[in-house]
């Protein structure tokens, strides 16, 4: 009990100091308006007068709150320690295994407190549904992000992702060179999705990829549902959510999943291979956003600049995630070539689901998925 009280007191004291410092700052602002920047309203680094002023403002705040960033996911462990080492700003990493919805819930329930998350890393569906919670900001490398991968004013912008793929244990099933192979007798009771597509985004994209490979389009997921219905009829579909455990023990030797997640199974199953069909390269990216009511608005913006710098992008790449500036960095030669070579090969033009197309797909799935595999 004593210890708790002591800790609480310790935590309260810096708060008082911060409050005092802020009062002082505000007082100073009255005399020298030129140096005062409302960090919460800054939409680019130029609003601070340059990167060094942004760094200074962030250091003054002295802290950054992040949420739902697992240290072993997309190399976030190294990214967090890299940021702190570079700028000397400690990071409070809460609920590392939380979901996108958990992040949004935290922004709402902790609004106005010092514990609220400053920055978010969320799925696109959740980002689109909650833009009213975000502050617009454009990083210095904004131009390298394709228009389809960002909100025009900078409320959210995609960060890293990959392509829908078929991962398989080559010691248990024949080599896969097209989706039709999966209907063969060698795949009986072996093909799985990463979740229920009416519930999990990765699974929805798996069905969409199957649709693209079977003559469907981004506007028409029905061919994918038909394909899984065929798999079901042949007895090839396993209604089990693929996880590291099911891949390891052999329950799901063939899995539709994002290539960067699937490639990681190679650690447990040396014969694991990842195949991205050239006629159905479906991309999926996560997005970054800044909390409109971030308790550390400058640190939040500095974090974004760090993530979208060459350094931050290459750190993601080392975690097998494809950073959003990858194409631009390959052109400029700034990419980490070794890390890039470790990614599963992809040949062709990738396509991305728009918001309207995702809505259409989920409506179709809600009505047809259960019957198709029931």
């Amino acid at each position, binding site marked *: 009990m004593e210890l708790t009280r002591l800790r609480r007191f310790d935590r309260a004291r810096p708060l008082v100091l911060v409050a005092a410092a802020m009062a002082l700052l505000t007082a100073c602002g009255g005399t020298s308006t030129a140096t005062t920047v409302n960090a919460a309203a800054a939409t680019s680094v130029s609003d601070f007068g340059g990167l060094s002023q942004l760094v200074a403002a962030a250091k003054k705040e002295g802290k950054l709150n992040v949420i739902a960033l697992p240290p072993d996911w997309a190399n976030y462990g190294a990214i967090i320690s890299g940021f702190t080492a570079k700028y000397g700003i400690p990071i409070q990493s809460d609920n590392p295994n939380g979901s996108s*919805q958990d992040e949004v819930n935290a922004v709402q329930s902790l609004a106005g407190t010092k514990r609220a998350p400053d920055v978010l890393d969320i799925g696109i569906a959740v980002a689109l549904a909650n833009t009213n919670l975000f502050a617009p900001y454009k990083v210095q490398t904004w131009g390298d992000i394709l228009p389809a991968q960002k909100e025009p004013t900078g409320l959210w912008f995609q960060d890293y992702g990959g392509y829908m793929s078929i991962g398989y244990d080559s010691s248990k099933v024949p080599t896969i060179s097209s989706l039709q192979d999966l209907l063969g007798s060698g795949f009986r009771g072996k093909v799985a999705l990463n979740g*229920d597509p009416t519930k999990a985004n990765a699974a929805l994209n798996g069905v969409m990829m199957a649709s693209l490979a079977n003559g469907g389009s981004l506007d028409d997921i029905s061919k994918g549902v038909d394909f899984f219905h065929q798999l079901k009829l042949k*007895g090839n579909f*396993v*209604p*089990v959510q693929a996880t590291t455990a099911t891949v390891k*023990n052999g329950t799901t030797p063939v899995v539709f999943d994002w290539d960067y997640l699937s490639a990681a199974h190679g650690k447990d199953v040396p014969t694991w291979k990842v195949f991205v069909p050239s006629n159905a390269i479906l991309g999926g990216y996560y997005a970054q956003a800044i909390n409109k009511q971030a308790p550390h608005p400058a640190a939040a913006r500095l974090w974004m600049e760090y993530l979208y710098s060459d350094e931050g992008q290459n750190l993601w790449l080392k975690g097998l995630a494809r950073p959003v500036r990858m194409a631009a960095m390959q052109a400029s030669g700034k990419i980490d070539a070794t890390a890039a070579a470790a990614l599963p090969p992809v040949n062709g033009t990738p396509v991305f689901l728009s918001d309207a197309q995702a*809505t259409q797909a989920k409506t179709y799935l809600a009505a047809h*998925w259960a019957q198709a595999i*029931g």
Partner: protein
Amino acid sequence: MSLSWLGVIPFLGYVALFLLLPTAIIAWSAFVGPDGATTSNFGKLTRTDIVGAFRNSVVVSAVTAVIGAMLGALLAYAVATGNPDGVFRRLVSSACGVLAQFGGVTLTFAFLATIGPASFTYNFLQQHGVDIYAGGYWIYALRGLGLVYLYFQIPLMVLVFLPALDGIRPQWREATESLGGSTWHYWRYVAGPLLAPAFLGATLLLFANAFSAYATAAALINQGGIIVPLQIANALTSEVGLHDIGFAAAQALGMIVIVTVVTALYSVLQRRTSRWLQ
């Protein structure tokens, strides 16, 4: 004025807090949509997959309740007629106490590890020419769910039915026999009618137990929402934008209605079977 009603307050408070209030909240949310009051949540209940989920839920609950009740009653009878202080009775009743609560992820894990498609048993049998999954992975279908449910249904039946069997006195059988009755007469006119209300009540309990089970099914079957609790979970947690709290509440209300109907049927039956006792 008598203050005897004071004693019932804790009970009423408990019922209000843990039964009436949650029901009221569910009923309320079932009529709320994104744009205020609506009845549209109930319209979605006619969706083919939802109707199918309700049918599957009722079927799997009814079948496992009836099979569980019969097998559990037989086991309980074997225990009740044995030595009241014997090892068999102690073993069975303590095992049932544990197994009746053995559900969810651990139970599913136990089944998959034992007879699942990646299990030692299955692979061993397969290598010796016996393929229990020749017709498909039935363990991930309704039949598999029923099999897993029986694992906690039978022990629960033993637990709840044993006291009723213990109430049957051997003297009644002796009396039947001394009056010239056969074993059939004893079961038809003495033990049967005495046990019927308890048996029906226990079967209803098993039905409700299976009907409301969620964790076991969620751990076993991750696709398609084949029973209602899984459909409700889908509606609550979908990250692709299909989450719909009002619809989840409407489905929950549907489950409440079904249990109410079954309970009403039960009380009618019970009144009939226990009529002669008056």
